[in-house]
């Protein structure tokens, strides 16, 4: 073996040793992907490595998430990485929630109306009408019917009494004195 061959063998051995100490791109990618998979905020994280230059893709919900994931990967200090090109995208904002259905309030009887013409309502009318002269109230009709002749002021008072009792009277037979 001459000197030239010895030099050649030494060179090949050195190259082989040197190459075997440096992680291959596939190994780097695998290590980075392990890191990426632990980042729950990064969706679809993936990396391609060429000559130690890692290009990361994936989707983050916002820029802060992107910065955080990138910093975490850099901090992991994966062996063999020369540089990291962080190319993650930002997820589009979620669509606005559907408008809530329009609530339709149940139709209830207004507070100003009695639901039934019961004894209490009838008594309230009698109590109020007791001192009003010249009129009678007929409770046999569908609506209590006020019959008689009164002044305009007394008519107003009668309407107030019925409103207070929460019953609409029939005043078609109530005339106003001149």
């Amino acid at each position, binding site marked *: 073996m001459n000197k030239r061959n010895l030099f050649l063998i030494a060179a090949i051995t050195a190259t082989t040793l040197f190459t075997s100490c440096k992680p291959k791109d596939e190994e780097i990618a695998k290590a980075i992907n392990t890191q990426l998979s632990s980042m729950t905020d990064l969706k679809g994280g993936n990396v391609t490595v060429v000559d130690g230059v890692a290009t990361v893709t994936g989707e983050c919900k916002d820029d802060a998430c992107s910065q955080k994931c990138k910093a975490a990967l850099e901090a992991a200090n994966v062996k063999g990485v020369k540089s990291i090109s962080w190319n993650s995208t930002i997820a589009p904002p979620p669509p606005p929630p559907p408008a809530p259905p329009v609530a339709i309030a149940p139709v209830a009887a207004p507070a100003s109306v009695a639901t039934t013409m019961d004894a209490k309502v009838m008594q309230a009318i009698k109590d109020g009408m007791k*001192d009003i002269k010249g009129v009678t109230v007929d409770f046999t009709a569908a609506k209590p019917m006020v019959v008689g002749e009164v002044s305009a002021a007394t008519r107003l008072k009668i*309407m*107030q009494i019925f409103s207070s009792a929460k019953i609409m009277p*029939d005043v078609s037979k109530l005339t106003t004195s001149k």
Partner: protein
Amino acid sequence: MALQEKYAALIATATTNGITNLSVAEQAGVLHISGTVKSTTDYDQLWAMYSSIDPDMAAGDLMMNLDIAAAQGTKLKVTTDSSNLNIRSLPSTEGEIVGKAAHDEIVTLVEKHDDNWWKVKTEDGEEGYAYAQYLSPM
């Protein structure tokens, strides 16, 4: 909606006067307006407007249930036509008459029993229930 247009001026005044718990609802051909007015003046004004819009109030299309704000101790004026106002032992004409308050006399509100009967006390110390429609907070 037509009734709200018919009584638009009344509704506008009720709103302007700042009625508490004002409710305006149209149901089955009747407009219902309810709430608590601040004073007897506001109460009288709204009823006068009703009378102005429908002089005979015979259309049967408006139910106006208005309470007048009055706290315990409020002075009340007796607004009977001319007669005395009976003061009774119970909130009903079935109650025994325990006193009388003259027309225009001032009594003191003890408590509101309901929309129709208020417990009052006269200057003579007579205490009992009187029909609220003949009492006007001052």
